[in-house]
């Protein structure tokens, strides 16, 4: 029998057993109560306890069993597993119904189970992090068995082409080189351009919104800026490639410079636009929570409004502003679609932003979308790149959280 059909059958039988448990449990509890015994819980609660004791262990046995099945290969036939979990379900039904006794705390038992279920749900997010770490690290380790870590970190040539031949059975893959320096150079170049756009515009917008703008402008401007963050990145990528890149080429041509259509400026600028709201929104909140007593003190000393903002408010808000910028930067480093569509594919170690260059995320996508064997060095290199990306963005996020916490503690604000 197909696994799918078996699963469907399992669910159906379990549903029927659960229904049976509910009605039998309820009927029995009502009977006991009608006989005049004082019970700790309502008949409904006894019924739900019976349902839980029927379904819970059975689902657990089924899930653990299938996981073992996957890990060990098909050593237990699925049919046995199916039968075993149904036996457990039937036993659970019997126990659940037997527990319908006046002195049994059915509600407390249910609530203990619910609490465990809720805690289990909270564990999923931990599992996700470990899943990401585990999947990336295990595949990256396999990559580093083929190519040295040192070569990967310091090499200046990224040329995976020959490893493709090796996996196809031709050549020995010796020509493949995985030096990631040009990829990181490209990533940092594009990120730097994005930050050059996003930090001044975002910060100044935040200053205007929090210090100058009338309340009406503020309530309109903030959500409008948020729209910039809500536009899908694939749309930004198209905008960068079709509209912005030719404009950049024309401007460069006007100054007598030669620019590639896959230049780094177009994705950089568009990415900067995308990040503006990340920076302006958080900076705005931070500037707003700088205590007014500091502004009053500064104005009382005869400082102009501009001087107060520049010399008092901004320095006080600096940890928060840096935190916002770091978050924006981590967003830019990991951004994929804009660079996949608008930046180049060619690893290029250059300081000229008008040339085409590629980034870490572009190579990850390129390595995983071809018709490649999963075992090939090029595919695995995506995970090695992902590992570095994970480490860098994680560090930036953690530093950012620490900075904002410092700000929060210094000024005792709770809403950040």
């Amino acid at each position: 029998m197909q696994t799918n059909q078996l699963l469907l059958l399992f669910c159906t039988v379990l549903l029927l057993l659960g229904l049976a448990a509910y009605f039998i449990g309820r009927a029995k509890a009502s009977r006991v109560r009608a006989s005049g015994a004082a019970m700790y819980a309502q008949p409904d609660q006894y019924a739900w306890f019976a349902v839980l004791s029927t379904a819970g262990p059975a689902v657990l046995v089924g899930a653990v069993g299938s996981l073992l099945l996957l890990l060990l290969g098909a050593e237990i036939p699925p049919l046995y597993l199916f039968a075993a979990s149904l036996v457990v379900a039937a036993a659970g039904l019997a126990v659940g119904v037997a527990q319908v006794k006046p002195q049994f705390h059915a509600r407390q038992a249910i609530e203990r189970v619910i609490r465990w279920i809720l805690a289990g749900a909270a564990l999923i997010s931990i599992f996700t992090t470990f899943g990401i770490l585990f999947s990336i690290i295990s595949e990256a380790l396999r990559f580093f068995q083929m190519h040295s870590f040192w070569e990967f970190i310091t090499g200046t040539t990224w040329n995976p082409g020959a490893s493709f031949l090796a996996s196809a059975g031709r050549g020995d893959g010796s020509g493949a080189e995985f030096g990631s320096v040009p990829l990181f150079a490209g990533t940092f170049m594009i990120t730097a351009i994005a930050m050059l756009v996003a930090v001044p515009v975002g910060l100044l917008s935040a200053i205007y919104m929090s210090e100058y703008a009338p309340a009406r402008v503020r309530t309109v401007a903030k959500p409008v800026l948020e729209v910039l963050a809500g536009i899908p990145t694939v749309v930004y990528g198209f905008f960068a490639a079709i509209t912005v890149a030719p404009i950049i080429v024309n401007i460069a041509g006007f100054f007598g410079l030669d620019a590639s259509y896959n230049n780094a400026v177009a994705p950089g600028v568009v990415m900067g636009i995308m990040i503006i709201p990340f920076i302006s929104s958080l900076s705005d909140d931070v500037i707003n929570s700088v205590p007014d007593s500091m502004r009053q003190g500064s104005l009382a000393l005869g400082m102009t409004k501009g001087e107060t903002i520049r010399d008092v408010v901004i320095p006080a808000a600096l940890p928060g502003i840096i935190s916002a910028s770091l978050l924006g930067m981590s967003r830019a480093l990991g951004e994929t679609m804009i660079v996949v569509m608008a930046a180049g594919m060619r690893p290029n170690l250059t300081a000229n932003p008008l040339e085409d260059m590629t980034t870490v995320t572009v190579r990850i996508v390129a390595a995983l979308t071809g018709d490649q064997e999963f075992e090939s060095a090029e595919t695995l290199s995506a995970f090695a790149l992902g590992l570095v990306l994970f480490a860098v963005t994680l560090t930036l996020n953690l530093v950012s959280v620490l900075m904002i916490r410092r700000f929060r503690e210094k000024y005792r604000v709770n809403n950040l």
Partner: protein
Amino acid sequence: MSHTFDEISQQLKRRHRKSARLKWVSMGALGLAGLFLVLFFADMLSKGLPAFQQAYINTEIRYSEEASRDGRQAFDEDLIPLISRTEVRVIPLQLRNNPELIGTSEQRWMLANSEVDQYLKGHRNRLSDQEKAEIEERVAAGQVDLRFNKTFFGSGDSKIAENAGILSAVVGTVMTMIVTLLIAFPIGVMTAIYLEEFAPDNRFTQAIEININNLAAIPSILFGLLGLAIFINFFGVPRSSPLAGGMTLALMTLPVIIISTRTALRSVPDSIRHAAFGVGCSRWQVVRDHVLPLAMPGIMTGSIIGLAQAMGETAPLIIVGMVAFIPDVGASFTNAATVMPAQIFTWSGEPEQAFVEKTAGGILVLLTILISLNAFAVVLRKKFERRW
């Protein structure tokens, strides 16, 4: 060293000018951001709106004996390069299914070639001067016209530009979002309830909290790597399927839902909880019957916003293979499918000029859906928001 009053008032003026400058510069920055937005939307509209119209040719189709072998025989010879290949291709098939049609003829609007379409819209095209003259003649006679593009909204992807539509991607998106929501919503709400209402303030809880904030900031492409390595390679979920994509996106949406649910739960005042405890409710009863219903509008708003975010996400889906070429519109959770952003990405890679328009058209459809979702979330919040 002392200054005269004149010098000091000069200095003061300078300082005030400088102060005013900061105001104008910062206002300009906000204006610049707004300008970006306006330019962006203007650009997308100007590129994408023409995609909702398509060139059609009104012509006579002669269902002759020859046409049942070679579809081209059914048309005037000089029209053949102008009519879409897909229309010509189906004629023999049509005649085989309905042999009684042979010998009759019919006057009908036929889908034109994408080159004709681009010419009528004034874009770059590969038509010869003679073909252009032919079209002009028929335009004057009212036989060639731009009409509402049914194909774009009614069919799946195609390598032939005029035949490509977004419907299969829309269906794929709906399937994927169903999976995402079914997984992320219950788990996210349960996690938030646990952290807000049940969890003791210990190391374990703090670890979960830090971890959730971190997950929200991890680059989305890394979730794609997780989906590929764990869901597809380890658990054997079919590649390119809405199931694989939906599960990957669910993990990405989880932090958004958790964070907004916690905010919603926190905004329910403690007096409600105290009153419920006071009449003898257990903790779970307080949450289920009092806190959760009051927090529901906030939870819904956060979930819709999270869903809209997931709907626009592309990178992790590319990694799990959801950039498949899907010509047929079919709804299945385990077969290969594509989603709207992935379809936009695929079209943007096509070299033909006609596909630029398709891409922008697809973008407009996607943006319309996302903006409506977000607007709906805002309305929901406005309508049910309570100040305690």
